[in-house]
């Protein structure tokens, strides 16, 4: 028989409406209060790293779409940058600026989704619908650039699969005000609303030292007051050409994370505007026959182009980076997204390891929810923006 003082075990998830993505939190409860908990992850394991080992360097880009499916573009870019580092090539300026623009669009999209889900689980359904509207605008722009809304598959090793359409810049410029209006309304609806503040303030706190110990990056680390941003500290692409602000918080609670995400969206929109101002003309692919597919006119029109096309696609040929290993990181919406690739000089990766930014957050759930009520788990879980595809790979 249970004694009244013995903790009750409750399993939250794997299929609980609030555990979007599949994860199980095994709770030990004393009444409504969480005494102890363990996190059980891996329900969505698809073998991303193993799949990469059996596919050519370019084919693996498809699988990176399915990591963080809310901002697939950034995964594409991160992976391609790792392989480009291995090949020791630098992409042309137009490609870099376009990658910045699309990264920032994806960041807006990811933050919109994360905030929407987080506040919806606290009961703010109206704000959720407004942000979904803005996300639709971003999806339309992404569809315009690459031909798909979610599974973008847009970058290639050494450049892009295709340049953006000529009216792309105008389409973005026309959309940015609408996205700003949505952000503004979202801000006015919730940020100062006491119902929301009471729900999220001083909930799920982490201190600076704890966050660093757990390996936090991204908004969750910045919420504790550490101004770490991969875009600032190890600039990649041409991020060092843009002005933007890094928001930091001071309490490391759910409210700070919320405010930081809201602030970062505005910064991303500003980066997009600056990038559109100085979008250079020129090619988007490196001029190297052993990396980039030839132009279609050459493939259809002359034998060199045709042979080049075959040589890049046939099994056992294709892109062959020199033996070696390379790690490169990008600032994904959740934090540092790293790809570590090893080549043995073949046309397939020997190893491709992904550092998912939300893994440390998810591992720290027991620490964050300890001592809180069961109903506080939901906003805390929403604020870490766990993405199943990325966490379990």
């Amino acid at each position, binding site marked *: 028989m249970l004694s009244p003082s013995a903790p009750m075990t409750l399993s939250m998830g794997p299929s609980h409406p609030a555990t979007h993505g599949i994860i199980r939190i095994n709770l030990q409860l004393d009444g409504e209060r969480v005494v102890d908990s363990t996190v059980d992850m891996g329900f969505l394991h698809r073998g991303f790293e193993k799949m990469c080992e059996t*596919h*050519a360097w*370019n*084919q693996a880009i*498809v*699988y990176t779409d399915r990591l963080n499916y809310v901002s697939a573009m950034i995964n594409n870019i991160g992976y391609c940058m790792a392989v480009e580092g291995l090949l020791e090539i630098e992409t042309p300026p137009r490609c870099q600026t376009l990658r910045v623009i699309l990264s920032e669009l994806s960041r807006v999209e990811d933050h919109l989704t994360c905030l929407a889900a987080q506040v919806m689980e606290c009961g703010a359904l*109206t704000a959720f619908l*407004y942000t979904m*509207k803005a996300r*639709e*605008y971003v999806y*339309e722009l992404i*569809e*315009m*650039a*690459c*031909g*798909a809304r979610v*599974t973008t*598959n847009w970058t290639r090793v050494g450049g892009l*699969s*295709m340049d953006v*359409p000529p009216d792309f810049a105008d389409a973005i410029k026309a959309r940015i005000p609408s996205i700003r209006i949505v952000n503004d*309304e979202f801000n*006015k*609806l*919730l940020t*100062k*609303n*006491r*119902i929301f*503040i009471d729900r999220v*303030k001083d909930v799920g706190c982490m201190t600076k030292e704890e966050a660093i110990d757990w390996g936090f990056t991204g908004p969750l680390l910045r919420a504790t*007051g550490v*101004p770490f*941003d991969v875009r*600032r500290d190890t600039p990649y692409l041409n991020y060092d*050409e*843009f*002005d*933007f*602000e*890094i*928001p*930091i918080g*001071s*309490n490391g609670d759910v*409210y*700070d994370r919320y*405010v*930081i995400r809201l*602030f970062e969206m505005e910064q991303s929109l500003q980066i997009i505007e600056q990038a559109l101002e100085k979008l250079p003309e020129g090619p988007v692919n490196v001029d190297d026959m052993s990396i980039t*597919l030839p132009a279609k006119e050459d493939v*259809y029109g002359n034998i060199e182009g*045709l042979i080049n*096309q*075959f040589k890049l*696609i*046939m*099994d056992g040929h294709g892109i062959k980076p020199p033996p070696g290993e390379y790690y490169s990181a990008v600032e994904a919406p959740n934090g540092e997204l790293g790809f570590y690739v090893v080549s043995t000089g073949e046309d397939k990766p020997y190893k491709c390891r992904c550092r998912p930014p939300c893994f440390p957050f998810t591992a720290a759930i027991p620490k964050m929810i300890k001592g809180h009520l069961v109903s506080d788990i939901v906003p805390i879980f929403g604020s870490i923006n766990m993405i199943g595809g990325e966490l379990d790979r």
Partner: protein
Amino acid sequence: MQKKVTNVTINPGLKEDIYYVEVFRGLWITNRHFVVNMWRHTLRLFGIKTKEKGAVTYQYPEERRPIHHRWRGRHRLTRKQDGSMRCTACMLCETICPCNCIHIVPGESPNPNVEKFPEQFNIDVLRCCFCGYCAEACPKDAIRMDLLEPEISGYTRDIIFTKDFLLGVTDDRPWENARLEAAYEEDK
């Protein structure tokens, strides 16, 4: 270029404690949305065009979202001007496909001027991830994904697009073939 660090922590003060101020501001926003959107819906109901729609949603199946022409939808095999198929069974699309969903059986072409052609060309579309690599790899512009056709469905678990279907010469899905025919007309 500078990257400033800003502390954005908000410490709620008296105005937030009073609660009513912010709640009425929120109600003002939601009500304004209701009135404005209702007004737009009403005007559109009477055929008066407004700059924006009342809602971003579409009344699917009656109303369809305009799809950008870059959309990677369902595949088709293109034809030459004389109507014969362009594909020469070079196998590049089968090689590049990351999902191994294209199966080609090459054979000798009935046309003496063409060496090879695919006797069978099957796409197991439930495995396809719509990456677009096949269209990118094809050296003959023989496979395209430009039908702007996002809905692919069937009644069984093996939706296999055969060569005849991809060329639009069967009639097992007449509603889709109409779109194919239009695409071929446009090619000419």
